[in-house]
């Protein structure tokens, strides 16, 4: 393998690992998620009426506070947030469904492709036989 390819490989692998680690460090931890969920539940039940989700996270400073105008991480305002278009992107285990759906889609495409190819090959095999008998 060429030296440049090796260097590129190492760089790509390093980038992949570094990006994952950096992303992990930037995203909220599981304990933060649980804490935020607990806050949300309290707000919904009315157990702590003065402690709304917005109030408890210092007006947009925290990880889970609403950020009006951006709407990416703002949760209390609903799916899209105020002025935002991306919706709620907080990490959650429910996101596994997305992975499953993507895998299913790819699997279905592979299966359909395999079926079509098999049918095509069967047809190709039959054709020379028919030509030979004529």
């Amino acid at each position, binding site marked *: 393998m060429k030296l440049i390819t090796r260097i590129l490989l190492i*760089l*790509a692998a390093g980038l*992949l690992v570094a*990006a*994952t680690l950096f992303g*992990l460090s930037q995203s909220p931890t599981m304990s933060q998620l649980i804490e935020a969920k607990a806050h949300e539940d309290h707000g919904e039940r009315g157990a702590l009426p003065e402690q709304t989700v917005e109030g408890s996270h210092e007006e947009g400073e925290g990880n889970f506070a609403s950020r009006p105008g951006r709407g990416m991480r703002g949760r209390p305002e609903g799916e899209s947030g105020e002025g935002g*278009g*991306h919706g709620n992107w907080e*990490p959650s285990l429910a996101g596994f469904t*997305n992975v499953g759906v993507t895998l299913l889609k790819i699997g279905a495409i592979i299966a359909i492709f395999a079926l079509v190819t098999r049918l095509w090959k069967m047809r190709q095999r039959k054709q020379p036989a028919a030509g030979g008998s004529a």
Partner: protein
Amino acid sequence: METKRTPVRRTTINLLIDGAMFLAFLVATAPHLSGLAIHEWLSLALGAALITHLLLHWNWIVQVARRFFGKASWTARLNYLLNSLLFIAFATIIVTGIMISEVALPFIGISIARDDFWLGLHRMASDATIVILGLHIALHWSWLVNTTRRLFARSTRKAGRSGATQPATSQESTL
């Protein structure tokens, strides 16, 4: 011996890189699972991995490009067209992703005004990529299965040899 093993090693590296890229793609397509930060940084790294993937297959790309209107087989042509589409789709995802970045770009001090057009294009390109990637994997399915089988067969054989010291048999040449 070494000359025989080199292509096998290269194929193994290809398989491992492709596997890692596929896993990274799966995670990147689920920002609800990973969160936005991982989604953005991982996707940028996936772009780098994509360039490496292209460089590893550069000879094939050049060869088929030269013979595209000549002696290339239909499978190679289909593969080439599909790979070109996949490249365009990935490039679109990366460019539009940068345009709507909320974590990665602000981190390096760049902030771009949000536009829903880029978001729409980003989603459209992502959906298209899933379909094209499915076809790409389907076209390489036999390579994928055979290489994985060889890889496992090699590791099993190695494990067997470590127990009993045997000379290289003719099976080696089938690799």
